[in-house]
């Protein structure tokens, strides 16, 4: 191509991108075009598309978005019942309604079944349960059932839902209480009106905090016991939800394993990495804890190969835009962070390595590898404390413990 044509094309492309960036559409936020490939980059500031039109007096917890409807929980209510909120997020997030859950002082987690037919809400404390709602009308959830028994009574901290051989199951991380240890409870949701417990086990040191289920494998965040990988129907070891078989386990630096995302990249076909959230002490205004990258290509011997750290802030929950290979992490007072997670994360130069806090072994540092693409919500003038984040259909949504719900434009790949 002629150089002048190249310049004209580049100018046109730049103009198009600039217009798109200012248009308020769902076109991805474009990273700094000067981003290099060999060292740290200047992350873009993620554009805000909207913020909830209602700020509850209560503390906002987790969020889950499906289609144009979002659900946000309330946390630490100190009351006998707790509401969750329903939002229309087709444009600026607009409150539609709320649902009050009885016998719950905290609603820590919320998720829909993969087909979107049901909403599952985890309740704490002392009458721990999952409450199941029909989403026949997603704007008006209707109570279907509540699953609670002696094993969940202490409180269900997180509830993940996934299909195993076509059947929906809920994976409940149950709090420790008094002298009782934490517990994993697996519930068959085939009949949402009558959920059936199929497995339970005391596990985690001292907690099992969260799980991630995909393709018949269950990843468990076991705090100081690291991450365990179980075959529950897809690992080839004969495991089932009612009789899991452990495939492997890994200790990540500093423990405090809080949450997990096992990435399956539809573009590269890679399923080599799991991302582990470390939740270290947080104060309600500051936080600590890194993202640890674990190579799970050998499930029986997973190993940590890289990490991502933000000084003065710690990670909470993740969501991955898998088609684009971008991980979005809630980072409490550090806002939202967007990381490029496509390609080889475990190979880097010595200059791209750092030593994680309280470790002696240098690991690949995603920041030094130029994989930090974007930062969101630190430009708003007021502090944020981001609990959860989710990439859905070309938008990134975040729940703010100091506010309600944010809608942002995603970043694009460099």
């Amino acid at each position, binding site marked *: 191509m002629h150089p002048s044509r190249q310049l004209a094309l580049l100018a046109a492309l730049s103009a198009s991108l600039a217009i798109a960036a200012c248009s308020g559409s769902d076109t991805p936020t474009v990273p700094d075009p000067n981003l290099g490939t060999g060292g740290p980059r200047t992350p873009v500031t993620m554009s805000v598309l909207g913020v909830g039109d209602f700020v509850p*007096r209560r*503390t906002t917890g987790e969020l889950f978005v499906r289609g144009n409807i979002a659900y946000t929980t309330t*946390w*630490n*209510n*100190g*009351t*006998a019942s707790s509401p969750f909120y329903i939002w229309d997020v087709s444009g600026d997030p607009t409150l539609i309604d709320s649902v009050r859950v009885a*016998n*719950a*002082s*905290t609603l820590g987690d919320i998720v829909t079944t993969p087909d979107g037919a049901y909403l599952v809400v985890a309740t*704490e*404390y*002392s009458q721990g349960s999952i409450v199941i709602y029909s989403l026949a009308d997603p704007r008006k959830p209707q109570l279907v059932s509540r699953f609670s028994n002696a094993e969940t009574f202490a*409180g269900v*901290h997180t509830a993940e839902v996934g299909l195993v051989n076509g059947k929906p199951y809920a994976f409940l991380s149950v*709090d*420790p*209480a*008094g*002298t009782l*240890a934490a517990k994993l409870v697996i519930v068959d949701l085939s009949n949402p009106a009558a959920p059936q417990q199929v497995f339970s086990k005391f596990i985690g*040191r*001292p*907690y099992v*905090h969260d799980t991630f289920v995909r393709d018949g494998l269950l990843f468990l965040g076991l*705090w*100081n016991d690291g991450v365990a990988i179980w075959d529950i129907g897809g690992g080839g070891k004969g495991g089932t939800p009612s009789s899991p078989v452990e495939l492997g386990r890994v200790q990540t630096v*500093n*423990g*405090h394993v*809080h949450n997990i995302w096992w990435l399956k990249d539809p573009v590269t076909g890679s399923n080599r990495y799991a991302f582990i959230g470390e*939740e*270290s*002490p*947080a*104060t*309600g*205004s*500051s*936080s*600590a804890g890194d993202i640890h990258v674990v190579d799970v290509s050998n499930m029986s011997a997973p190993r940590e190969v890289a990490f991502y750290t933000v000084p003065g802030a710690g990670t909470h929950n993740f969501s991955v835009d898998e088609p684009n290979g971008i991980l979005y992490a809630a980072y409490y007072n550090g806002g939202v962070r967007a990381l490029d997670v496509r390609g080889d994360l475990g190979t880097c130069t010595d200059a791209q390595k750092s030593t994680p*806090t*309280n470790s002696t072994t240098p690991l690949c540092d995603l920041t030094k590898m130029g994989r930090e693409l974007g930062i969101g919500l630190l430009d708003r003038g*007021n*502090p944020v*404390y981001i609990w959860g984040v989710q990439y859905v259909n070309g938008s990134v949504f975040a729940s703010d*413990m*100091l506010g309600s719900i944010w809608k942002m434009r995603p970043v694009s790949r460099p």
Partner: protein
Amino acid sequence: MRIHFSLALSFVSLAWLVAPRGAYAQRPDEHAGMAGMSMPDSAGPSRWHVMAQAIPVLTHAAHTAGGADLTEGYLAQSVLMTRGSLWRGHAQLDATLNGEGLTMTRGELSTGGFGEGYVDRRHPHAYLHELVLTGVGSFGPFNYSASAGRGFAPFGTDDPMMRPFEKYPLNHHLAQILERGLIAGAMRVGPAIVEGATFGGDEPTSPSAMPRLRRFGDSWSMRATLLPRPGTELQASYARIESPEQASGFGLDQRKRSASVRMISRDGSRYALAEWASTAEWDGDRNVEAFAYESALAEAAATVGPIGVAVRLEQTGRPEEERLADPFRTPRPASDLAITGITRWRVGTLALTLPSVTHGAVRGYPFVELARLSARSTVATSVFSPERFYGGGSPWMGSIGFRVRYGPLHARMGRYGVALADSPAIRALGVSADAPHAHQH
């Protein structure tokens, strides 16, 4: 959070002004621990003291948890205590049974208070509050003792139960370490006392909980005390406690410091204490400090004719944790390592103790207490907002009650063997010269 130096200086000055001069003496209706038994008494008989106490109290708390105004009554500080010497004074036994687990299960309204899963209420103590056997001896100028059992680790100041207020100070969990399974040693040379102990860091999870054997020895503390003159006591101490709030041992550790000046007149009619205490919660996995709380407290008491008057000023940092459906409770153990903020509490408390009412060997000391509190987040942007949670008003508490007691008042609580300096009881707590000498030696 840092307490301003000027504030600390004010506290010390206050203590100094109120403090008495002169020697001290023990009144007949009180018991200064086993002070007189620090050394083996080769000639004397065994001596035992028994004290039973209960405090029926009615408390009104305005703008307490959730912004509520509450009035409640309980039987607080229901204890049966005994101290005695064994084997011709070569051993001492301290035992305290506490009935609060039966009489105030929901805890005692105490806005700003915290600990062991209770918040804005004081938790009931363990049924077996204290059971410590101490051996004492001497070698030249050295007096020494060794203690074992469940009780107070050598750290900080006296237990609030033997101080002139019914409501505990907010810093109870910063300034004392109690109900631990321990082995402790103490040595005294002239006016100097040094103590050390190893113990299990786990705090009780219920009134009936016992120290976990597998946790024994994971924590330690040291305390140095100087007695420059009778009635005056300077103390500094340090402790490392492993995972006190997570019995499994995987919670945050604590590093605690304390310093205090205590003065009491020879008849116990005037008393003052100034103390500073701090607790840093330590993330052992990352080897970094996670949170820190600090407290400064000054209290003084005097008898004015038949009336006991006591004043306490306190500033204490409190961790804010997730609350249960009962807003006065927090999950134990917690479900993660996070807190939602740190609140700086300031409290001024005035207590009046009236002349005793006697019924046979039982004496009752009516009292009135008023406390004014203020709460402010140390970081304005914290998730926890005290203004929002307490409804925006200024919290205060008022209490009336009786200290009902049988037997001589124990003057001190929290020290064993040669570490227990002679001291009279604080008269403003309710001590009468004509009290019956029940179970006196």
